[in-house]
């Protein structure tokens, strides 16, 4: 691998969103997760997304543009990336990339923002059968390691996916308060998961990113489509049937609505991702919503 995974994440951030947006994202992250103290650090330019109450009005009056006060963080945030690495995540997503690329891009972006902010980033990954936890550190190299672990663990012949296993692990093993970034497979959330979320939400702050599945009724007819779970090949003529397509679209719509309703009920901010190109915008919107929700 010539480029590291983190480089890709960064390049996406730079190329796709330009420097101003990067600041914007950082500001967004900071305003969401910045643990405030009374120790004033320095001033910096205001970027949209910053807390209005952080604006130093006096300094702003002397200066031409709004300035924001920065404080020395009293404590570091702990970001835990919770990534499903079951074989479901090795399948294709809406854009045609493997879902794990989108997962790595999303987890990498949030992890990078956290690391830049001086927070610690850890990882809990696993399948239906096993869970692996990586320790929390604040270095870029560590983040790269975590992303590589996700990337290499997610394979087509791996175990099946079940995020409940990882969430249960966290319920059992984590005492600290964390920020959880959950990168989930595109599945119906069952009552067991709902219960886990209820318990986790009490203790932690949760951001939920669902990596969308490719629509089998939209995959081109020249390609055969099979399910990674059991390698069952979907008959091309059947999956391309317009009536089946319409019914599937309706059922997906219903499922997304149900999932959204469930997460909303639990007060969990969530977003859906179907392409690594959408990661920056979606994560930004997610953080934005998170900031507003915390008020």
């Amino acid at each position, binding site marked *: 691998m010539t480029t590291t995974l983190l480089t890709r994440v960064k390049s996406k951030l730079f190329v796709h969103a330009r420097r101003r947006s990067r600041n914007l994202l950082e500001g967004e992250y900071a305003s969401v997760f910045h643990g405030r103290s009374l120790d004033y650090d320095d001033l910096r330019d205001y970027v949209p997304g910053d807390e209005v109450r952080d604006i130093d009005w006096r300094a702003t009056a002397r200066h031409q543009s709004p300035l924001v006060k920065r404080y020395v963080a009293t404590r570091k945030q702990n970001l835990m990336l919770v990534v499903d690495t079951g074989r479901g995540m090795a399948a294709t997503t809406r854009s045609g990339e493997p879902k794990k690329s989108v997962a790595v891009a999303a987890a990498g972006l949030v992890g990078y923002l956290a690391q830049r902010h001086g927070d610690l980033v850890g990882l809990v990954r696993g399948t239906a059968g096993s869970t692996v936890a990586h320790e929390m550190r604040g270095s870029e190299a560590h983040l790269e390691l975590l992303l590589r672990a996700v990337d290499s663990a997610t394979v087509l012949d791996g175990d099946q996916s079940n995020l409940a296993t990882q969430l249960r692990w966290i319920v059992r093993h984590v005492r600290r308060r964390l920020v959880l970034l959950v990168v989930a497979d595109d599945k119906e959330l069952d009552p067991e998961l709902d219960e886990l979320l209820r318990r986790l939400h009490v203790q932690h702050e949760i951001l939920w990113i669902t990596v969308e599945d490719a629509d*089998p009724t939209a995959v081109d007819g020249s390609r055969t489509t099979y*399910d990674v779970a059991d390698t069952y090949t979907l008959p091309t003529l059947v999956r391309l*049937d317009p009536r089946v397509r319409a019914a599937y679209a309706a059922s997906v719509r219903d499922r997304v609505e149900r999932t959204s309703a469930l997460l909303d009920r639990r007060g969990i901010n969530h977003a859906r991702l179907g392409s690594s190109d959408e990661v920056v915008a979606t994560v930004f919107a997610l953080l934005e919503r998170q900031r507003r929700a915390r008020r």
Partner: protein
Amino acid sequence: MELNGPDLKWPGVLVVGALLALALAYAVYRLMSRRQARASAAVANSGALTELPEYRRALRRHRIRMAVLAASAALLGGAALVGAARPLDTTVDKPQSRSRDIMLCLDISGSMAAYDATLVSTFKTLVKSFEGERIGLVIFNSSAATVFPLTDDYDFINEELDAAGRALTGDPAYDSFFAGTFNGRGTSLIGDGLATCVSSFDKVDLQRARSVVFATDNHLAGRPIIDLGEAAALARTKGVRVYGLNPEEDGPDQEAADMRTIVTSTGGRYFAMSDQSAIKDIVGSVEAQEATLIDSASRSLHSDDPTLPITLAGIGLVGVIGATRRWAS
């Protein structure tokens, strides 16, 4: 005549065709699986799709369609192969002239002229009662002439008897019917007539049931070469039974009595024409004789019989077209 199952002219075509079909199927399978390996998309959680009732319905339709397509293609291919192998309808024809020879012997002398037409129709009734027997007709006056020799072609027999009937009712168009019956001395040479009839049987060295239905009034008017007694003796030596059929216009006279004696001496029977049961009795006693089969050499007749394969291939083709057609949905 017996019918065998359909034979094939070129059975090798089946083998070659089946092998080719197998090779083709394998090649297609390889091609498809290679294509599939090259361009396949892995998706997750397709259960959300496969559990939809619409999907299940479409899948069921798809499977039925595929099954129909496969069956039709197999039917089409198989039928085409069988057709290409040229099925033959083999008929083993074993011509057997069953049974018995019956010579109808009709006196057409002037004294009989009034009765001949009736006798011919009696013969026709008689012929109807037989099946498979060979029948011939000899007419005689001063000399005897064979109208048709022994044959089992009943259409022909009936035709000839119709013609005889018309000739005997005086139709001038049929005058030639009587040709060859006036070559003797006098008329109504009954002994000569019977002798001719008796001699008309073929395959003399074969043991067969031979009968003569001898229709005459036994009124001799001339000098026969062979008298009736000698003719009867000839019949006896040849094992021919003579059944007498006498119009008896003068009632049971001396001639009738003579005739009865002579006829009976050959093992046959005597009937007056008025006797209602005459025909039934003649048929009965002829059939009572043991029938002998004449076996001819059996021969096989081959004819192309593509009807079934073509029909099946047509059905298969309809199925293939129906299953591959994109029905408006």
